[in-house]
């Protein structure tokens, strides 16, 4: 009996818990909820806490994440044409949140996963239209003022917001930003080719500048060397002349016996000219080879 009572108590507790489970629900701080009564959205709940409802199938609860959704549903490059007919790939990301849970539930019964593709189409279409109004230089420019990213983003956001407000999607977009811009494959190849050509210009410039600079340096060096040597030659001549002038003071001595001086100068010249390897051919008329003449020797011996 005691055992049965305990089982009944435990069973009753379980039934109460089960009933409580069916009739109570929590809404987290991160959530908003909508309570439907026989399928009709009757109570949107935006405050967190413990809430009560009738058990299913009378009332049902639909919960949604109320935080900013930063999912990358538009995380794909789409090609658009800019105002100056340049193809440009762009991808954007948006932050949005549910503003009216009851309306959101009616528009998107399957929740966020259903809303995102719809929103993606809306944003994509608006983005293409706005991109078409701007030249490429509004996106990419290193000049004063730079690119106009923020202005274009605001333009797209305003256009998307207008459509959302007009049709009441039950959500609001908090921000919209370009994530990335790029170029189509064919254009990329052309850009690569241009970058290569640009490098070739730089290569050519570097090579020729090097050769020109080297030539200039060498030419300048030769000029300076030539100037130095010329100056040195001049100086050498001056010194030489100075020496000659100094030496000329002693020429008067030779005037005392001009014949002797002339003879001695010739002897010096003879000696200097025979310093190198030379071959001489004499006959017996040339002194001292006159000694080889028979009459000379005979005369001398007879004396």
């Amino acid at each position, binding site marked *: 009996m005691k055992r049965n009572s305990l089982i009944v108590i435990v069973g009753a507790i379980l039934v109460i818990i*089960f009933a409580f*489970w069916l009739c109570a629900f929590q*809404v*987290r701080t*991160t*959530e908003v909820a909508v309570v439907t009564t026989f399928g009709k959205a009757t109570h949107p709940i935006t405050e*967190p806490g413990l809430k009560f409802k009738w058990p299913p199938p009378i009332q049902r609860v639909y919960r949604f994440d109320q*935080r*900013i959704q*930063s999912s990358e549903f538009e995380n794909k490059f789409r090609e658009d044409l800019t105002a100056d007919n*340049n193809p440009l790939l762009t991808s954007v*990301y948006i932050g949005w949140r549910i503003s009216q849970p009851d309306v959101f539930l009616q528009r998107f019964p399957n929740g966020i996963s259903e809303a995102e593709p719809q929103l993606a189409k809306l944003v994509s279409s608006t983005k293409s239209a706005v991109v078409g109004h701007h030249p490429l*230089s509004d*996106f990419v*420019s*290193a*000049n004063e003022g*730079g*690119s106009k*990213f923020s202005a274009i983003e605001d333009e797209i956001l305003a256009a998307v917001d207008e459509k959302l407000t007009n049709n009441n999607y039950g959500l609001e977009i908090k921000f919209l*930003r*370009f*994530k990335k*811009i*790029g*170029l189509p494959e064919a254009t990329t190849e052309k*850009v690569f080719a*241009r970058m*290569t050509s640009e490098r*070739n210009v*730089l*290569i050519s410039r570097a090579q020729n500048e*090097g050769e020109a*600079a080297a030539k200039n*340096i060498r030419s300048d*060096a*030769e000029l*300076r060397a030539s100037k130095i040597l010329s100056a*040195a*030659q001049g100086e*050498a001549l*001056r*010194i030489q002349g100075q*020496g*000659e002038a100094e*030496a000329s003071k*002693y020429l008067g001595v030779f005037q*005392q*016996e001009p014949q*002797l001086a002339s*003879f*001695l100068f010739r002897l010096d010249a003879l*000696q200097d000219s*025979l310093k190198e*390897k*030379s071959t001489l*051919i004499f006959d*017996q008329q040339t*002194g*001292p080879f006159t000694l080889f003449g028979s009459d000379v020797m005979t005369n001398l011996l007879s004396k």
Partner: protein
Amino acid sequence: MERSIRKYALLNLAALVAIGIVAFIEARANNSMAGQVSTIFLGIGALVAAVSWFQMRLEENERLEKLEFDELTRSKGSSALFENKDTEGFPAQRSREQFERFFVPVFTALVLIAEAVSAFLLWRWFSNEQLLIEVKQPTILLSFFAAFALGLFIFGKFSSTFARLENHRLLRPGASWVLLGAYLCAIVALGTVGVLMGYPKADFYVAKILAALLALVALETLVNLILEIYRPRVKGKIARPLYESRLVGLLGQPEGLITTAAQALDYQFGFKVSDTWVYGFVEKYLGFILLLQLVALFLSTMMVFIEPGEQALIEHFGQRSKVVLGPGGHLKWPWPIDKVYRYRTEEIQSLIVGSQPDPATANQTTILWTTPHAKEENFVVANRDQSLLATNEVAATPAVSLLTVSIPVQFQITNLVDWVYQVESGTNLLDDIATREVTRYLAGADFNDIMSSERGAAADGLRERIQDAANANHLGIKIIFVGLQDIHPPMKVAADYEKVVGAEQTKFAAILDARADDIKTNALAGAAATNMIDVAEANSTKTVIAAYSKAALFTNQIPAYQAAPSIYLQRAYLQTFAQATANARKYVLLTTNTHDVLQFDLQTKVRDDLLQDVTLKK
């Protein structure tokens, strides 16, 4: 009594059919795969319950027929009419026998086919890797399946106890399937709890386990069918229903396992372990012990321990508390009143903008622009300098270049409340923000600046931009580091950039060579000039000294000459001649009266000794 048993069998059947239908609708509506698989079991159980109920009726008819026959026998006495015990006279018995002989095996074979085909189809369905259906309204699903489990358990427990007490073999199969259905519904409910606790695949895994169990049951049915062929038929011995699964019986009544275990212990220890007070206590209070454990488990949720490096947020009925829990022990209301969410806030987290590192090249010790080291992702960058164009016609379209970018961004959570409650996925948003800021920065910056002088400033600038954007979105993080070490031209043109560097080096080499020549030329010219002047000075000095010395010599020679002019001249001549011609080759022609033609070979001859040890190569 028989009527009651049939009533319970009918109740089993009704419970299985009703709950099976509702469970299927509920599981289908809420995308519960496990719930749908469990209804296959309930369906097969319903078929088994229906057949066993029908077999019960046949046996009841046979029993009534037999009672009627016995009554007639007693009232009419023994007569030839009633002595004929041929089956022709017992249509109910004949019907039952025909049923057991033909229908039951065919039905069991059909059950086998149903089980096997279902298991096969389920396995094919689950083998799709992409298959992950989100369970909708898990709370509702949990409530329903918990209720199904409770209802089936009450019916099944009652029926199985009744069948065991009354030893009614035909009530047992249906009761076992009902109990199994109860446990399976409880498992589906547990899977749904897993989904509620943040494990969306829990339902899928439960479905897989149930499919495997179905395959096991099919295998057992097959084995039963094969063994039935070889089973010895002993007259008078009541056969076990062929469609009754022992596996289902065991799974449906796990207490049978305990009994089996007790018997095994008795056998092993050689005395009745099951008769000891310990075993009796455990058997008697097992429910209480389990309940106590559940209560202890529930109470243990009142304490939470936060690990070092972690912070946690606590939510009271879903409403966030303003207190952020730091490392250590904390008390809270039990689950599900208070729930705790932990985060590693001290950890430095990172993400990479642009090219993601390639694990295959992670061990490379040298990373070059020209060799692949990451999955290349190019960013558009502006070109301010168009001076390379030869003409003055600057293109209307701005020049753009491409840069391969791989930028690590390191961050730390500084405000956990913002990080958790502001954005659904902070990491995703930060990745978007960082990529956007890099894109925007490059689109407004000059290619050459980024590649050279602005690189350092770019890293600081980007860090500040990302931090500002994160603050604007209330991400609650601090950007610690933004690295620009891996920004370079795309691999396709990287070699050309290296060639420019090579050309610049060649240029500097040519200039340096020219400088070297310059130095050499000027140094040599200087030396030559000095030498030239020195030589001139030497010659000048020599000239002067020679003039002086010759003058002095001449002054002294004059007296000698004047003393004997001819002799002096002769002597001077001969002395000088002898000295001057000492090394000259001399030919003296002594004959004067001939007309000989003399030929002199004045060619310089190489000395013979110089040619020694010289060999000519051919």
